[in-house]
């Protein structure tokens, strides 16, 4: 520097003291944390893709995978028709939503619009606890509790079936749907409720005519994220569904899902074999579906905010 001797206070201005370094380091640390999501997402996607792509490119017909009705990877010649798995997943998810949506919306409406004070806080804590139950425990409930109940109640031979897995999955997805739905209800301005109440609306009329219509985008997002949750669940479904590799004809048929098939077969398939690789293609399919569901949910919620 050519300038004459600096004023003492000016020197103090560009001194890199401890706080400056702490700021730098912490900023770097949280940056890594923030970017890690992108990193892991890309890495996992690449891993799944590279493991399955060679086979998918050269020897697998996508049409056969998506429409083939026989999943027989270990017989000779092998058949890789994933329709039974896709159908099983769809059936079980549908039943799960039929169970979860009424329960969760009921719970969210009760907590958000009717319960007061301490009762409300307790219910919220209990529902979050429900979400903390490990999925293998749910599987055991399906295996040991639901199975005999279904057999006796409906007088059917097989108790491990679409209905069983659907109920278990529904109960597992209910907490997340409840929590997000309740957030959606909470986002409805209280002035709307007050206005409707002053016009002589009952509590239920307020919910039905004002709160629910206004919260609709958030409620749709809650359902979608619940579907995403149900889609990805593995072990509980494997235990409760009976894992039969055929397209179910009714809710009393056993069925297999994409996730359960990957979990059950990956350990047996020789690394790098066609069977091994087709399981990764299934994983890619799953990845794509859940990714699309989550993006759609996000888009619905954001679109709503954009409109005010």
């Amino acid at each position, binding site marked *: 520097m050519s300038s004459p001797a600096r004023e003492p206070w000016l020197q103090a201005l560009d001194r890199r003291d401890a706080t400056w370094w702490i700021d730098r380091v912490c900023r770097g640390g949280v940056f890594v944390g923030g970017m890690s999501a992108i990193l892991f997402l890309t890495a996992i996607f690449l891993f799944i893709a590279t493991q399955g792509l060679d086979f998918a490119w050269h020897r697998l017909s996508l049409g056969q995978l998506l429409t083939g009705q026989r999943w027989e990877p270990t017989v000779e010649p092998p058949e890789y028709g994933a329709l039974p798995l896709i159908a099983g997943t769809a059936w079980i998810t549908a039943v799960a939503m039929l169970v979860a949506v009424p329960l969760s919306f009921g719970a969210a409406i009760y907590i958000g619009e009717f319960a*007061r*004070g301490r009762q409300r806080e307790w219910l919220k804590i209990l529902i979050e606890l429900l979400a903390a139950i490990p999925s293998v425990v749910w599987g055991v409930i399906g295996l040991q509790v639901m199975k005999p109940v279904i057999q006796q109640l409906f007088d059917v031979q097989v108790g491990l079936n679409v209905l069983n897995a659907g109920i278990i999955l529904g109960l597992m997805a209910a907490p997340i749907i409840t929590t997000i739905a309740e957030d959606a209800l909470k986002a409805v301005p209280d*002035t*709307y409720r*007050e*206005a*409707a*109440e*002053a*016009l*002589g*609306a*009952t509590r239920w*009329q307020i919910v039905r*005519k*004002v709160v629910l*219509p*206004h919260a609709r985008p958030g409620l749709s997002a809650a359902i979608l994220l619940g579907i995403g949750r149900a889609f990805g669940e593995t072990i509980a479904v494997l235990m409760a569904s009976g894992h039969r590799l055929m397209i179910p004809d009714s809710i009393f048929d056993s069925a297999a899902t994409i996730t359960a098939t990957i979990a059950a077969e990956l350990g047996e398939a020789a690394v790098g074999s066609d069977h091994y690789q087709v399981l990764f293609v299934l994983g890619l399919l799953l990845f794509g579906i859940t990714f699309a569901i989550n993006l759609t949910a996000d888009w619905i919620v954001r679109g709503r905010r954009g409109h005010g």
Partner: protein
Amino acid sequence: MAEPQAEPSADLAIEVRGLNLWYGTFQALFEVDLDIEAGNVTALIGPSGCGKSTLLRSCNRIVERLGYVSTTGTIRVLGHDIHAGTASPIQVRRHVGMVFQRPNPLPLSIRDNVLFAQRLHAAHGPSRADQDAAVEQALREVLLWDRVKDRLHHRATGLSLEEQQKLCIARLLPTKPAVLLMDEPCSALDPAATAAVEDLIWSLRGRYSILIVTHNMAQARRASDQCVFMLMGRVVEHSATEQMFVAPQRQETADYIEGRFG
């Protein structure tokens, strides 16, 4: 509503006797006695926290929204005790409409806002023609019809604040309430909109009994028949507006009106 009480005074819209009100353990109203004459505009004035909004919100029991409110004493609307065992807040609100400080149209169309209350109470919806007539009449009454008649299906939340507040008055009218309660209805509006809404309130005088809370002395003076001055949860003075502003009976009233406090 409850059965008529003994000797209902036909010329009184609201009759408050010995009203005490607590928010939890905090007492907001003390032994309030008040007669509001039918067909008049009565202004409730007083410094912030004096209980005027609480008193207003007691008259349609909307104050009970807060779960921790308790009251003693009676309020009669057109002679009916609104706290009587058989009276439900729902029915009370049908006869006692309310306008809030901030315009609060529901996030529905203009038309659905106007018909909201009517649809709540009608077992079978009125015919389309009746609904159209009700919408037009209510919007004409608040001088909004010509401005919005071509966009009745637009969202009410897209209107200007002045139009929103007029709509909030209009949507009270189809159920033919006897009393309109207004909680500082112009405080969120600019001067021109304030003047327009004031004119509207004045034009509704006679057909409805109007009780209006205001912070604005000039507004109370030019747009009310009667004036009630409250202080610390009590009614200090109640007289004809002209008299209160020219010759207040109590020293506190004079001090407040002249801007020495509050």
